[in-house]
């Protein structure tokens, strides 16, 4: 039975301080509302929240707001906006067998089994919707057919100690919301795999979500949600913990039936292998096929919040935990070395810009360096490093007695790299 009351004002009776609504109120309400329970409103305007201890909303000003985790630094990924590319902006690769190549900072292309030829570029354009100025582009330079367990992937691996708050392996495991912008000339279904590392194959798991590139050459936003893994834990070390893998190609041996791989069967595939589904598009089936990514965000919860722009110096520093590059100018004094023994050798300490992931990063000095005096060519080799600096061995032609100092100058184009990627 329904009834209707048309009134101008509802107010409390004499001697009663408030009006109580026992059931759901719909429509427009003005005045003060005191709710002792949980009230649900589709749209609220002109409301003061003073004194309100808890508000549950799905959006503010039409922007999705998080329902779990912190409000800043929500993105588990680093450089999701593709702004940082210390290794350069264009790199072409030809791979044979299994090989992973880091491209833009923290992003790596994994190629396995088959030979692949591709070029990765940092593009200076991105989805206008988020005001993005950068994106990562993978361009296919040679055709590779799907065969056996072949894979081509664009991925980021997250350090395990930084994802412990996901509480994987417990009944409180947190869901994850993935959002990203994608553009490609090759429409079709692709697969975003989450790979969780426990330290052994048998206790590591994957979850899969398909997404579709619907329109050619157009930025599209995709949102995917993953349940938390209540079965397998993530190891708590400086090693790989969780990987987001965009599958661009998968051989038939790595294609799972979509019905068993997705949603309802999250985290049931036990192994650290790279897999996709039978719906996987082969980006590498035609030369000059391309795919671009930007605004990639993986956050705790089920809400896909607006892509969070991290200040550049902070994002660069986050990247430098895993890789840093020092570009030297011509005749730049990069160090003062000293002969530790009588002979052609000398040494200096090379401090890193950011503390590294491990105490064993890889150090590379490329280009030409001079020892001054007497301005002779020297070779620089990294040695005995830790997470904050490396001892650099200087190898000269001329022999000097112990204690002799020599300045090290860089020639044009010389650079040093400190790498500690996962």
């Amino acid at each position, binding site marked *: 039975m329904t009834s209707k009351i048309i009134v101008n004002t509802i107010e409390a009776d004499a001697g009663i301080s408030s009006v109580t609504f026992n059931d759901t109120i719909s429509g427009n309400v003005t005045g003060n509302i005191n709710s002792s329970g949980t009230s649900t409103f589709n749209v609220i305007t002109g409301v003061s929240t003073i004194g309100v201890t808890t508000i549950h909303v799905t959006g503010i000003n039409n922007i999705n707001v998080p329902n779990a985790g912190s409000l800043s630094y929500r993105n588990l990924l680093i450089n999701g906006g593709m702004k940082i590319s210390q290794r350069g902006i264009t790199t072409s690769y030809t791979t044979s067998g299994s090989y992973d190549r880091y491209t833009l900072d923290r992003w790596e292309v994994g190629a396995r089994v088959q030979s692949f030829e591709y070029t990765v570029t940092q593009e200076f354009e991105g989805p206008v919707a988020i005001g993005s100025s950068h994106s990562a582009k993978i361009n296919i330079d040679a055709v590779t057919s799907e065969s056996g367990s072949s894979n081509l992937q664009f991925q980021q691996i997250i350090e395990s100690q930084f994802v412990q708050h996901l509480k994987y392996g417990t009944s409180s495991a947190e869901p994850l919301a993935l959002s990203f912008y994608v553009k490609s000339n090759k429409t079709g279904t692709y697969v975003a795999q989450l790979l969780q590392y426990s330290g052994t194959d048998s206790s590591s798991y994957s979850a899969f979500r398909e997404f579709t590139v619907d329109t050619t050459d157009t930025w599209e936003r995709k949102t995917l949600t993953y349940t938390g893994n209540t079965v397998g834990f993530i190891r708590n070390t*400086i*090693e790989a913990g969780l990987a987001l893998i965009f599958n661009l190609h998968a051989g038939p041996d790595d294609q799972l039936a979509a019905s068993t791989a997705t949603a309802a069967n999250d985290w049931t595939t036990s192994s650290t292998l790279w897999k996709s589904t039978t719906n996987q598009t082969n980006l590498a089936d035609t030369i000059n096929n391309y795919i671009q990514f930007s605004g990639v965000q993986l956050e705790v919860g089920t809400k896909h919040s607006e892509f969070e722009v991290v200040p550049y110096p902070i994002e660069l520093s986050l990247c430098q935990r895993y890789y840093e590059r020092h570009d030297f100018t011509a005749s730049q004094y990069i160090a003062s070395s000293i002969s530790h*023994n*009588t*002979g052609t050798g000398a040494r200096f300490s090379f401090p890193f810009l950011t503390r590294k*992931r*491990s*105490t*064993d*990063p*890889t*150090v*590379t*000095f*490329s280009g030409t360096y001079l020892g001054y005096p007497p301005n002779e060519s020297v*070779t*620089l*080799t*990294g*040695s*005995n*490093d830790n997470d904050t600096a490396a001892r650099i061995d200087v190898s000269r032609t001329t*022999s000097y*007695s*112990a204690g002799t100092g020599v300045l090290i100058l860089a020639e044009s184009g010389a650079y040093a790299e400190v*790498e*500690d*990627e*996962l």
Partner: protein
Amino acid sequence: MTMYKIYGDNQNRILKGNTSFSNALTNKNYQQFIKDVAEQGIEIVEGPDIVESSYTELRAAEYPSREEQFDMQFHDQVNGTTIWRDTIQAIKDKYPKTITGGTTIGPIPDWVQEAVDAYNAS
């Protein structure tokens, strides 16, 4: 063809071109090194350089400082002794000119094969 070279004070680092990394399991390049050796054989690894100093370098490291030598010569003249000449001669005798020094390639340390065996067994 040699791809890698053993390097470092403790022979626990690996050189690939001008890239240097240690034999730590957390190092991605080291993981690739072990995989490459397992697949292509230990022939792709060269042992460490064994550097032996020449007589000039050995003598230079032991000669007293210039100040000390001047002091010896002064006292030799005053006292009629030959301390400076004897000191220098002793160092020259200790390191004769037949010690020419040079660099040789040492054996590949055992840990390389042990690491490859462990990789193959996993």
